[in-house]
């Protein structure tokens, strides 16, 4: 079965990103697929590559990226929500003349249409938020 996930909160502050990741891992372990994880609202902060986390603590953005790499999961950060909150990839950064970008490897910027598409195509869409 194909799952799509919507993550509405940033890392650490709320448990939503943790719960979504644990669900994704458990689903993959059972042989299901995770077609896409879409990050909306403060969820876009999951895609930063500037986080500095103590060695003995979980690194939420890196954990997503690893999951995506190993299982070919599409990690999409909503462009509208991300711009408002200062999450930019290199192209966006250039376009807006910001001189720096902070999107982590493994994530990409996409539109709301990709969440709708996931909702239509996946067998189940689960929402994780606060």
């Amino acid at each position, binding site marked *: 079965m194909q799952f799509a996930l919507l993550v*509405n909160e940033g890392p650490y502050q709320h448990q*939503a990103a943790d*719960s979504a990741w644990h669900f994704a*891992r458990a689903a993959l372990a059972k042989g299901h697929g995770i077609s896409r994880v879409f990050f909306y609202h403060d969820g876009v902060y999951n895609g930063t590559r500037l986080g500095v986390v103590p060695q003995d603590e979980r690194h939420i953005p890196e954990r997503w990226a690893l999951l995506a790499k190993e299982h070919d999961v599409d990690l999409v950060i909503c462009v509208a929500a991300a711009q408002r909150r200062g999450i930019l990839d290199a192209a966006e950064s250039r376009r807006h003349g910001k001189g720096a970008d902070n999107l982590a490897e493994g994530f990409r910027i996409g539109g709301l249409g990709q969440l709708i598409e996931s909702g239509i195509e996946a067998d189940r869409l*689960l*929402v*994780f938020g606060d």
Partner: protein
Amino acid sequence: MSTLHLVNKSPFEKDAFDSCLRHALPGSAVLLIEDGIYGALQGTAPGDCFGQATELQRYVLVEDLRARGFGAEHLVVGVQVIDYEGFVDLAVAHELVQSWL
């Protein structure tokens, strides 16, 4: 069609748990995750309410339960304790998953 309802909020702090129980149709499933697990504690008002909702299939996520220092022995009767693997199975078994944020 059957729905799996997800509640991740403490019933003492927020209204999501109450609203979910008011809207879940008989026969549907309710899974308490994160701070939602506090809704199944014995000897509390929300727990009594959850225990009496026998028209629902009721589940609690064990990883979140244990993290918070509780176990199956603290829960009202009629509630099943499942792990993330069971969570996935529930999501497969129900055509619709609705989160109460």
